[in-house]
């Protein structure tokens, strides 16, 4: 496991406002100071200082960018496919639809697995959120949201609640109850409030905290019980479309992707962006960590999926083919990280060999865009949701 995730975090009085908060380094006239995230925000938005012009800022940014590229290039000594040459090739690969879940009356937009490896929650354009036992294909719960386009949904780690949101700009948590006469909507709790649509949400390691991403360009961490905003993450220049939490036990990071073509890695404690990658040619629709937490993959509207190594701090692989023209909407790794499953807007799912960079298989079946794709918690299957109103389990 990678020790790089043990980020040193400083607590203490901010050098500017003196409040006790998590701090991060800032540089003023070559001096390093420690600011809290609020003061960092203020510094970013303040006007021109002495001897500064728009042009001078631009050239400073560009020269720093050049320096960063230099530093990265110094350690770029080998390519992934070269290291992977000695790895055994994969054998024959057959995957078929094993279950088809029908019941949504409109486009399926998002889905998530329960930790019990068989239940899933899915949400759709007409506002319906359904919890299924996908093994038996029975619907166990259903709730209708007061908004359409429910683009995000998540299962709580305990399996006792679900979270969802979309055009209502909120993330709401519904406890799951098995009592016959209980109305699920009655116990609903509104947790997150953004100023624009909710595009993604995820529980952290417990039922008590939720991480959200929104069209308003920010991500945020919320306390479920009180609805309090614990930390906000600013930096994307456009709508944020996806996020994923790092799997590591001690890692406190997550990655987000947006319409500004950037994938950004954040420290959950300080709100700081610790790494940023801008190599895609179009919107990033989906990001997912490699199972070890040392890398992540992204799926983009530019029809490519890419792998970014966090320790080497660069893009290390591109998964693309000239015949794959339509954007990738959703990606996920198999349990060992050897396979990358990607759902595309041309209704297909492509399976990639992560290490060798080649496409292993193409799966047909859906009759409209594949909008969401997740591998089950124990890696026995993956589920794809589509605009054709159905979800399919493949194994």
């Amino acid at each position: 496991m990678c020790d790089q995730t043990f980020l040193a975090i400083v607590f203490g009085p901010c050098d500017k406002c003196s409040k006790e908060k998590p701090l991060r380094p800032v540089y003023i006239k070559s001096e390093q100071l420690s600011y809290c995230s609020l003061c960092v925000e203020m510094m970013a938005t303040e006007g021109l200082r002495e001897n500064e012009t728009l042009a001078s800022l631009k050239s400073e940014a560009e020269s720093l960018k050049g320096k960063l590229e230099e530093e990265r290039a110094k350690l770029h000594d080998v390519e992934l496919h070269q290291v992977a040459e000695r790895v055994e090739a994969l054998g024959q690969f057959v995957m078929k639809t094993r279950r088809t879940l029908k019941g949504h009356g409109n486009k399926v937009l998002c889905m998530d697995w329960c930790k019990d490896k068989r239940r899933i929650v899915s949400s759709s354009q007409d506002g319906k959120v359904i919890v299924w036992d996908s093994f038996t294909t029975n619907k166990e719960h259903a709730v209708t949201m007061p908004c359409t386009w429910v683009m995000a949904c998540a299962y709580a780690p305990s399996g006792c609640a679900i979270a969802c949101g979309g055009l209502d700009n909120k993330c709401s948590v519904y406890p799951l109850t098995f009592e016959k006469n209980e109305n699920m909507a009655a116990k609903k709790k509104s947790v997150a409030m953004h100023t624009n649509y909710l595009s993604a949400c995820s529980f952290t390691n417990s039922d008590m905290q939720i991480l959200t991403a929104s069209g308003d360009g920010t991500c945020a961490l919320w306390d479920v019980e009180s609805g309090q905003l614990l930390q906000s993450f600013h930096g994307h220049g456009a709508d944020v479309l996806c996020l994923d939490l790092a799997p590591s036990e001690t890692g406190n990071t997550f990655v987000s992707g947006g319409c500004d073509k950037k994938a950004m890695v954040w420290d959950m404690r300080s709100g700081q962006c610790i790494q940023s990658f801008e190599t895609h040619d179009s919107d990033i629709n989906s990001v997912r960590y490699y199972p070890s937490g040392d890398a992540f993959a992204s799926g983009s509207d530019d029809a490519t999926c890419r792998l970014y190594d966090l320790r080497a701090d660069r893009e290390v692989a591109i998964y693309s083919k000239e015949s794959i023209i339509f954007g990738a909407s959703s990606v996920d790794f198999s349990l060992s990280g050897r396979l990358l499953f990607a759902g595309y807007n041309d209704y297909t799912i492509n399976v990639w060999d992560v290490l060798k960079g080649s496409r292993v298989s193409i799966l047909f079946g859906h009759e409209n865009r594949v909008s969401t794709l997740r591998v089950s918690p124990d890696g026995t299957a993956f589920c794809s949701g589509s605009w054709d109103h159905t979800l399919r389990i493949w194994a």
Partner: protein
Amino acid sequence: MTVTRLDQGQRYRPRMAFLKKIEALMMEMQSPDTGIKTQTQTVMVASIPHAVTGNDILQWILQRLQITSEEALHLGDLFVKYGYIYPLQEPKNLTLKADGSLYRFQTPYFWPVQGWAADDTDYAIYLAKKNIKRKGILEEYEKEHYNMLNQKINYKWDFVIMQAKEQYKAGKERKKEDRYALDCQERAYWLVNRTPPGMQDVLEYGVDRVTDPNENKKNTMEAYRREIMYYQQAIGKTRVKSSVSLGGLVKYSEQFLSNDPILSGCLPSNPWITDDPEFWDLNAKLVEVPTRMRVERWAFNFSELIRDPKGRQNFQLFLKKEFSGENLSFWEACEDLKYGDQSKVKEKAEEIYKLFLAPGARRWINIDGTTMGITVKGLKHPHRYVLDAAQTHIYMLMKK
């Protein structure tokens, strides 16, 4: 109250990178040297130039992109659905048939555009023109659209009717072949942009975006400042050689290959394939006897051990034997503090201090002086992450 569309300033169509790629292929397909060989066909009494058969299209795609015929047919079918190629004999059936059915390339004027959707006014003119040509020719759904547009853009209606008449007159003066071609092109365009009921609307793209993808927001002061701040801290970051980190990724995947059910199968069987859930029963969270594969995973790295509830249980027993059980309990208490209820942070932190950290505490844990110092200082203003340093120290200790 159902919120169907809150206007919160979302206005912009998303980037559609695939459009340019299809256009490039379309140009190639029509290129005199490398493209498809076209032929002149006689349809009804008009002779139509530049027609191609469905099979020609399929073969060209197969050969050009080096893919299977299933993929080529699927891709070609999408080209037809998006209106880049239209069928001549069954105009309303936007699918690619791998036989002698005839198709033509749509003129670039009628290609889908990222920047805007097909205009209501243009559609009204088209329908009005159709109506003028032969009264009662409009289909049901077209009649509905027509009436709806009449209400929606009523203030422009004189203009619409005038334009329709003009276009109809101009059309009559054209040669029969040209008129026929234009009619086909227009019809195909509107089939794609105003889909009839029962047909899939391929141009639907979901929700509008908040920021304009065609506008470059990078030239603001704030954007530059943020960039500078990011680069400054990124340059100083420690990086690892590619050979080392990539080696790590490969090693991880090799190590877990046998545990990956999709690649290596699972015993007794994959429940999704055989409908037998025994695999799940054998691997239940706190099962009496964990399977051999599961126990092997615990040896891979410490994270695997502590993440698996059964593994953690066994580890706790082991620690008890070594008289250091409080380390794991402390770690679990810290996790609870980090991810638990925000309102209880203060009291939880205090409890943890009393139980594990205070001098003479009942379950005192052994951490070094510096870490203890930072922790005690932080506890004066309890925060969710105040015990991070101590937790990390204990985690590393347990790892050994």
